[in-house]
């Protein structure tokens, strides 16, 4: 059974159709990258996976069961901004996951449980290379370090899937390259299933094993809200193939969208 599957999934607000006719199934361990023009519903789709947006029609199954309608520890998330808690240090931000689990009433551990949480958190922080900043607050960290912290925090719960909403969109190109290496390493080591929204097609090709292009297939100029976007291209990507070839192949194969210029 696949990890996540959708059948005729649709999302609309009143008469405004945002997403329609989504059909897919995703296996454990896939790295799906989502691209598409701004406002085409990628983030809405991610919110449906998170459980903060309700499903209008069709079904969306996680492990064969309808996806819960609120966020939970089985789905980790990293946003572009505001992903970490400003009032906690690096250690506190990562520890809190364990503390929330072990101390239901206070949400804060003491004694042995605390030492245990610190050890676990330190291992996670080590993985993302922030061990030198354990006691720093997020405002003292650079953008890249904050995103590293957010990833470490999200991975504490060992989620079934990791949702990334343009996680590296605000970072410098050099830092971005480091983050690509980090996320690739974590994905391989921990056999994660990742969904990542990005505006950078190169990034989408480099990181993913599967690329989804969101776009509208029908467009009525009289009623621009009547039709929603869907997955127009569902491409398996091999990491071994050089990106340049792929882009070229796509051009020839005709990756044409209403918003082609923003993509390629």
């Amino acid at each position, binding site marked *: 059974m696949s990890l996540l599957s959708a059948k005729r999934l649709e999302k609309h607000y009143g008469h405004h159709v945002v997403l329609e006719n989504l059909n897919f199934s995703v296996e454990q361990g896939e790295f799906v990258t989502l691209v598409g023009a701004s406002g085409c519903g990628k983030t809405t789709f991610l919110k449906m996976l998170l459980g903060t947006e309700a499903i209008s029609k069709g079904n969306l199954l996680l492990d064969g069961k309808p996806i819960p309608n*609120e966020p939970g520890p089985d789905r980790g*998330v990293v946003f572009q901004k505001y992903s970490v*808690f400003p009032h906690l240090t690096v250690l506190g931000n990562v520890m809190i996951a364990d503390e*929330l689990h072990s101390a239901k009433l206070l949400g804060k551990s003491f004694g042995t449980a605390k030492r245990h949480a610190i050890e676990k958190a330190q291992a996670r922080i080590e993985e993302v290379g922030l061990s030198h900043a354990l006691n720093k607050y*997020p405002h003292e960290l650079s953008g890249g370090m904050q995103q590293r912290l957010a990833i470490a925090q999200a991975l504490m719960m060992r989620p079934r899937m990791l949702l990334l909403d343009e996680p590296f969109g605000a970072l410098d190109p050099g830092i971005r390259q480091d983050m690509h290496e980090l996320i690739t390493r974590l994905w391989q080591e921990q056999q994660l299933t990742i969904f990542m929204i990005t505006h950078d097609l190169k990034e989408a090709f480099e990181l993913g094993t599967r690329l989804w292009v969101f776009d509208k297939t029908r467009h009525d100029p009289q009623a621009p809200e009547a039709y929603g976007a869907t997955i127009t291209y569902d491409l398996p990507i091999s990491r071994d193939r050089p990106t340049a070839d792929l882009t070229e192949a796509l051009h020839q194969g005709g990756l044409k969208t209403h918003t082609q210029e923003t993509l390629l």
Partner: protein
Amino acid sequence: MKRLINLAPSRGSRWLLGLLPFLLLAMVYLSLSNARLAENPNDRLLPTPATMASSFYHLATAENVRTGQIVLWTDTFASLERILIGVAISAFIGLIVGILNGGIPLIRAKLSPLVTVASLIPPMAILPILFIAFGTGEAAKIALIVIGVTPFLIRDLQGHALRLPDEQLIKAQTLGASSWQVLLRVLLPQLTPRLLNATSLALGSAWLFLIAAEAIAAQEGLGYRIFLVRRYLSMDVILPYVAWITLLAFLLDQILAWTSRLAFPWYHSGEGDKS
């Protein structure tokens, strides 16, 4: 020549520039006072600093013959006790209701309109009701401060809770937090420094309510004393008392600011060091 907005005084001259208006006001007062006293040495309206100092010193050291108490300290402790109890109760209620209103939509739907309406009632208008209900003792004065300050604190904290990015609440839930844990570990720590901030803003109105209540019915207190000696036109007592109240208010404000900076360094990270 730089633009005006880019010209900043150096550290030392900033002190001097800040002192200048005070010196100017003092000089204006002294010249007016001198002019009046030259005409009539018994004038009571603008006493000399020496007269004020000796009156204040007398109030701060001499025991009352009948009760054995020193007037200034009795007044100060009575007023501080009232304002501190009042503000502490307000802050406590404000924090609890603010967090619940900000964090739980079902509670907000019930309480928010009530708080909005309550905050629009002029507290001074219901002072007679408080005197009738609680008598003219301490309870009525503390109740006036609580009624006057709490709605403001609730609204401020609720607003701040609603302005916290949704991402944080979602993130907490993906880490397995229950509703209770979100309130306790995400909202409470982020609203506490905001509470200190809002409380220091509310202290101004708290003093207003305190002095008004004391002026109407009290046996001691800073506001009571000022209104008592008004009958004898004792400006030599009123002016030092006003200065003393200002100093107390300033100290309370500074204590809150220091506490906030010490305990919540992350909250003040966004503030520039302009002053």
